[in-house]
């Protein structure tokens, strides 16, 4: 049980470090900021206007229109083209001086022509030097088409008079829409799992640092097993994660987010930290230096995010039992108010225990090998073959 000594001292020295505390507080602050963005997002999505995720093209092009009856100009898309009304002469002056990209001239007798079902001849003057002229041309052509269709419909309606008052339909919303459910349940669950990925550098520093600072030599001369060293260091990081997740959940609860069964959710997040750290320790135990560990960590975390995220997506689409292997699925189900049979929790628990056992076993085996710690380090393929019993060490 020497690992508890290592955990205790690692935690003690980490929490005493000003550098660590600054990073810890910064992380909480960033998470807190994300909460604001998340809140703003939900507020917008719940508003009548909704939110647009496409960038605004407002003011992309300009058009000067001589249209006394405002017959044409009211159908032009104002979000794309800025319309100014002016006499034809003034409009042409604007075009020549570059103040506008195009001029549209709608004949003054256009209303009479409509009444007589005559063709209206709308003229478009374009600045050929402007690369955006095609956008204006398309928009004017579209507007002409819309105008024609509207006038035709209005003429047809006038020939067959009928009650055209539309029926009034009142919409009463119950429950949350699917997009809202995804936002509130899934996003909130993801936010809770975020701290698991913020402390990879800590375990890297703890394990790779032993090699780089050569303190590992002394540690390996201690009457303790490699397993004590690996588990002791890992548990210290799990402890720090547990602290941050607790603070983070506290903030979420205080700011009004609903977390059903918070203790169970907390435990699910923390047990997930164990294999996540296990994967990180493998990377750290094998890496020669921080640089290598950093690269390995990027790949490792992409894989972990995939393993955590894909099962919930499967669950959302077909609610299959296997999708429960990810603790994230269980948290999302808890947030959704699902009635979850107790044995369903054994699925993620079993998965977490299995992955933890494998990752820590590999890490300990790696740390026991003097060639991995002191060099010359064997290649990855050779190591895999040796672990698989397909090659003998040194053979």
């Amino acid at each position: 049980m020497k690992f508890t000594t290592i955990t205790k001292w690692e935690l003690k020295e980490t929490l005493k470090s000003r550098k660590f505390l600054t990073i810890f507080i910064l992380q909480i602050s960033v998470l807190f900021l994300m909460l604001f963005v998340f809140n703003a997002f939900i507020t917008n999505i719940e508003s009548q206007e909704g939110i647009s995720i496409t960038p605004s093209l407002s003011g992309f092009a300009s058009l000067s229109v001589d249209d006394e009856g405002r017959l044409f100009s009211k159908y032009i898309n104002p979000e794309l083209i800025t319309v100014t009304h002016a006499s034809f002469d003034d409009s042409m002056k604007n075009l020549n001086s570059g103040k506008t990209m195009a001029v549209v001239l709608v004949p003054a007798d256009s209303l009479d022509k409509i009444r007589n079902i005559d063709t209206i001849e709308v003229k478009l003057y374009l600045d050929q030097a402007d690369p955006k002229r095609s956008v204006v041309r398309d928009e004017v052509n579209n507007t002409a088409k819309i105008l024609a269709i509207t006038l035709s419909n209005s003429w047809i309606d006038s020939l067959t008079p009928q009650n055209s008052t539309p029926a009034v339909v009142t919409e009463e919303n119950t429950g949350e829409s699917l997009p809202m459910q995804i936002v509130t349940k899934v996003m909130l669950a993801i936010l809770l799992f975020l701290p698991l990925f913020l402390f990879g550098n800590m375990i890297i520093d703890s394990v790779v640092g032993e090699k780089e600072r050569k303190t590992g030599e002394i540690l390996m001369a201690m009457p303790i097993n490699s397993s004590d060293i690996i588990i002791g260091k890992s548990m210290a990081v799990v402890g720090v994660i547990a602290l941050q997740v607790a603070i983070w959940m506290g903030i979420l609860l205080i700011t009004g987010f609903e977390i059903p069964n918070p203790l169970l959710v907390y435990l699910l997040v923390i047990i997930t930290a164990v294999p996540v750290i296990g994967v990180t320790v493998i990377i750290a135990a094998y890496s020669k230096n921080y640089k290598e560990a950093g690269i390995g960590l990027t790949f490792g975390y992409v894989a972990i995010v995939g393993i955590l995220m894909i099962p919930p997506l499967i669950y959302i689409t077909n609610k299959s039992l296997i999708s429960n292997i990810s603790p994230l699925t269980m948290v999302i189900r808890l947030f959704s108010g699902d009635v979850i049979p107790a044995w369903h929790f054994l699925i993620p628990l079993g998965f977490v225990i299995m992955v933890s056992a494998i990752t820590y076993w590999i890490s300990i085996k790696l740390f026991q090998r003097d060639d991995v710690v002191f060099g010359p380090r064997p290649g990855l393929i050779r190591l895999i073959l040796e672990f698989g019993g397909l090659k003998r060490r040194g053979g």
Partner: protein
Amino acid sequence: MVDKIKYPQYKFETILSRNQRRHLEVDDNLMIEIESLSKSFGKIKALDNLNLDIKKGELLGIIGPNGAGKTTAIRITCCILKPDSGDVLVDGMSIHQEQIKIKSMIGYLPEEPNLYERFKARDLLSYFAELYGVPKGEIDSRIEELLELVNMSHRAEDRINTFSKGLRQRVGIARALVHDPQILIFDEPTMGLDPATAHNIREFIRELKGDKTIILCTHYMDEADSLCDRVAILNQGRIMDMGTPQDLKSKIRGDLILNIKVENPCWDVVKGDVVKAIEGFSTVEDVELVDNQYTISLKSKNDIKDIINVFEGNILSVNTKEPTLEDVFINSFKQ
């Protein structure tokens, strides 16, 4: 007539494992037995069938050039590295079977003290005391005692990253002693230290001598000469020579070396006669002439006066010295 009943004859023989036989044969006076130890790093052979015994309470010096295998031998003894073949028995226990017990018997000070920079000196000693399993009630008093011993009580609350190399080495020694081990292994403990600090550390090792079994790896011959009971000269993973410093020095011909630097170049003409004349003295063991300096190995100083007379006053300088370990070291490499 009753037939003689023939009972099957069983020959009872105790089949002992290699290790058990070792235990029976073990010399109680031996603390460390290095047996046929080999270790390679890739294509480089660091240790090549190394054999070495260290007695209880002995201070054994290991000297050798860089890459001789000193650190590898030490790391294997401390169970940090695994040998390719061979074994090390520490107090009769094999490094292949009793790693934890062996580790708890050894206090190891590597070449670089490699301490945790962010720890305070006292906290660092506390941490290692706990890892070594020192009883909780004894940790504080033990640390106080050690800090005093290495003269670091005044810096106990300072962080390691504020210490000079000498101070770190002192904390390193305290760390190696924190569990009061039976064996101490020092790898270049005075390397890179100023003369005063190096002297202090040597004195400290001298104080520990006799009470503990000590292995001292060093590049400094005078250090090995003055501290060690026995010295092993290691090269290319093998022992080239071993013995007490006196024994090793006596292997160099003569108990006394007389160096005579001559002034007059005409002596070159008659040097053959001079060499012959010197070799005629009964106390002279060997004469060597390099440039204008004669190095004469003598059994005793009886003939020194007469030898000097041979040079008829054409002498620039005369000095005598006893052979040193450095001479032994250089001589073994010449051979």
